[in-house]
């Protein structure tokens, strides 16, 4: 089984879990397990995602520890990281890695040719929108290009909009747009995929002065995951051990989090209850008039 992580950095559970218009994410919530992630102190975007990957708190974060993407990139298996790992220059992985937004230009990726040419200067909101479009488009192209053991794309548009462009309608529209991007990625996944939609911490707009980040959220779907519905008490550090557990990897002792499915019997994946094909076809013709 392979892993696909869709990072919606800055998304809040109040927005994602309450808005029925986010049909793709709500469908995923129905299929799997979801919940809030209690936010920690604001240590910045990159340390937060490194904490997730290594399952280590930022105080304990040891860059020599192996993050989940490195564990899965052994041998012939490859990892793709878009938008986030360590800061510029890009993090070295067996695969491809893009540096964090808004770095751009020919030296911002490994291997180099994946980067877009530097766009003409525009307003910040246009840059955010353009960068996000490019990122998701690249994600789709890259995901389809080969099999990845671990694929991760992190969208930082909400963080950027929340920090520098506090127009509520722009943010609200951006959430819906993000849901569409998630939907477009779902078309590419196969049944042998573990999918994690993750926001490590939320961005409130307007943010109360001095307040810690809002809670983040996760939605996890795997064919063998025994959990469904809402889960309380998950932490960011639990994400990597849970994913490793579900795909049958050992959890390194350096990881501080716990698997949410530890000791649980994994589900046997099997075919869905088959629909009555004939009844379905009969229903489709019902009311035609001519029959």
């Amino acid at each position, binding site marked *: 089984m392979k892993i696909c992580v869709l990072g919606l950095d800055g998304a809040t559970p109040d927005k994602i879990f309450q808005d*029925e218009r986010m*049909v*793709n994410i*709500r*469908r*995923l*919530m*129905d*299929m799997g397990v979801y919940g809030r992630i209690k936010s920690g102190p604001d240590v910045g975007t990159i340390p937060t995602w490194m904490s997730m990957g290594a399952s280590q708190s930022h105080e304990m974060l040891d860059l020599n520890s192996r993050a989940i993407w490195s564990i899965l990139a052994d041998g012939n298996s490859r990892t793709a990281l878009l938008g986030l790992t360590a800061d510029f220059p890009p993090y070295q992985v067996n695969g491809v890695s893009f540096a964090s937004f808004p770095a751009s230009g020919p030296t911002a990726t490994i291997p180099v040719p994946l980067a877009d040419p530097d766009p003409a200067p525009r307003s910040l909101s246009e840059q955010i929108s353009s960068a996000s479009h490019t990122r998701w488009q690249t994600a789709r192209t890259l995901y389809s290009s080969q099999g990845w053991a671990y694929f991760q794309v992190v969208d930082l548009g909400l963080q950027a909009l929340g920090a520098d462009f506090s127009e509520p309608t722009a943010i609200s529209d951006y959430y819906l747009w993000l849901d569409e991007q998630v*939907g477009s990625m*779902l*078309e590419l*996944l*196969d*049944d042998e*995929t573990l*999918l994690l939609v993750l926001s490590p911490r939320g961005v409130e707009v307007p943010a109360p002065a001095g307040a810690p980040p809002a809670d983040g959220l996760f939605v996890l*779907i795997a*064919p063998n995951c025994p959990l469904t519905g809402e889960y309380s008490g998950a932490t960011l550090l639990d994400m990597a051990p849970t994913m490793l557990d579900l795909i049958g990897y050992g959890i390194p002792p350096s990881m501080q989090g716990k698997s949410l499915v530890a000791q649980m019997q994994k589900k046997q994946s099997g075919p*869905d*209850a088959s*629909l009555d*094909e*004939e009844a*379905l*076809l*009969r*229903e*489709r*013709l*019902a*009311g*035609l*008039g*001519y*029959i």
Partner: protein
Amino acid sequence: MPKKVIVIGLDGLEPGIVDAMLSRAELPNLAKIRQSGAYSRLKTTYPAQTPVAWSSFATGTNPGGHGIFDFISRDPQNRLPDAALSRFERPKSMFAPPRVVNQRQGRPFWLSLTQAGIPSTVLRCPCTFPPDELKGNMLSGVGVPDIRGSQSKGTFYTQDRAVHAEESEQVVYLGAGLDLSTKVIGPRNTAKAPAADAVCDIRVRADKSSRKLTIETGGSPAKIELSEGQWSDWVRFKFKLSMLQSVTGIARFYFRRLDPHLEFYVSAINFDPGAPLFPISAPPDYAKTISEKLGMFSTLGMAEDHNGLNNGRFDEQAYLQHCDLVLREREQLMRFELDRMKEGFFFMLFDTPDRLQHMMWRFRDVGHPMHNRDADRDFTTRIEQHYQRCDALLGPVLEHVDENTLLIVLSDHGFNTFRRAFDTNTWLHQNGLLALQDGKKPGVDLGEAFAAVDWSRTSAYALGLGGIYLNLKGREQGGIVGEGTEAERVRNAIQSGLAGHPDAVTGRPAIRSVSRREDLYSGAYVDRAPDLLVNFHPGFRVAWKTAVGGFANDLIEDNTRKWSGDHIVDPEAVPGMLFVNRALQCQDPSILDLAPTVLQYLGVPASGVMEGKSLLTAE
């Protein structure tokens, strides 16, 4: 001045009736168009069916070029009948959402206009579900299902336990009393195991003194009040599929009566134009935008509720009211779009004349088995009245026509009576070409979908509205007829046996001829076509259950349904009609000629695969 082309489709308008009414000066707007240009019969497709003909209109090709041969198709692997216009794709993975795919192939001419940068507004054209990505706006037409995936499935509510569900409907029994709680039935939720209906709770209160029905809808609007014999405005319902997911749909209520039992009806639940389950417009928010500007509208492909009338859930008057509601929505949308049209192409199809003639033909045909039966008033000229209504629709259109506007008004096929039903499967059985298991005899009790057929001894089977397929080796699962001589023998036997087949009761021939697909079609999709097509004489049609792999009780029997007019006969007998505000250079126009005509007028070259020729002289 930029050029404009306006095409108005009046589905099923019969030229024989139009001729007579023109001669009596009863269609003034059509007469004006004829005077400014031309009026002609319009050759239709084989078969003369709405989705087939309008797909040829769109692509300029015979059905072999667009792949739509009938409302009904079959998968040779299981021979089960299926809706031919669109296909639901099973999700590729657990993550992917279900998708729907338009089965019409070929290239509609509005995509050539798009490529040339010319805008189009295409409203309600059949076989545009899901819609084409064009420059401009598109609203899908015939082919859009209701929220349950059916072509149209309403629900009848009654206190009378003797009532049973008839064709394509649900019956909900109400308890005693006049203050009741019940449910509106929404989509089938197949994500649940076992699958279950998503429902909305409603409360109904009937008042004997005012004879009104008040419904707390649980939707929007929250409360409606109806008199007996009245349709409601649209009500929007929200159906919960799970704790997290829901879907909205819209429906109309009809209050039938209070006595002897409280009875009312809920139309098929249409997709909500504001949030359709699958895309019904291009751009996707076009349907939402026009519903916000003009109000809710029916999104269902077959919007006029013929089932309610066929099943006796309401009378002709209520059906005609419903048809009028649908027509008014279309008229409002057409006027809105024409008012803002500056250039390019506009198309609007009015389906209502087709649906109305299907149900009302028996009143004008004194020889029909259902002539005037059960009618409490005279509807003899109701069809002509509707033609006048269609003519009146053209008044506002003519206001938008100037010297740079090409105006075309057409029907895709004509109409005729449907008195007698011919069961082709019974004929195949009688002639040793279709075998039944365990010595069974043909009859309606054999069900549908060829449940009792012995495929190991069957050479051919009829399915759809006139098609016959050979049980071909290597194509059909377990097929027994070899290509070549053996197949030729079967084709010959069917052609010679059916052509001119007499109806012993009326003394008339039921069938004119049987065509081979290779003589009718060419193009990339011929292999989807039936091997043979039965061309019925006017007055006859394929039997109801034959179309879905069933049998009738007799080879030829009376049509005792209210669905009494039809057009699925020899296409030579039911041409459409064509009015153009320009002189025509061709005396024998075909529906395939319209696409190259529009393209020529707007200065865009016709694609090489188009078979039709422009009807206009070169400018």
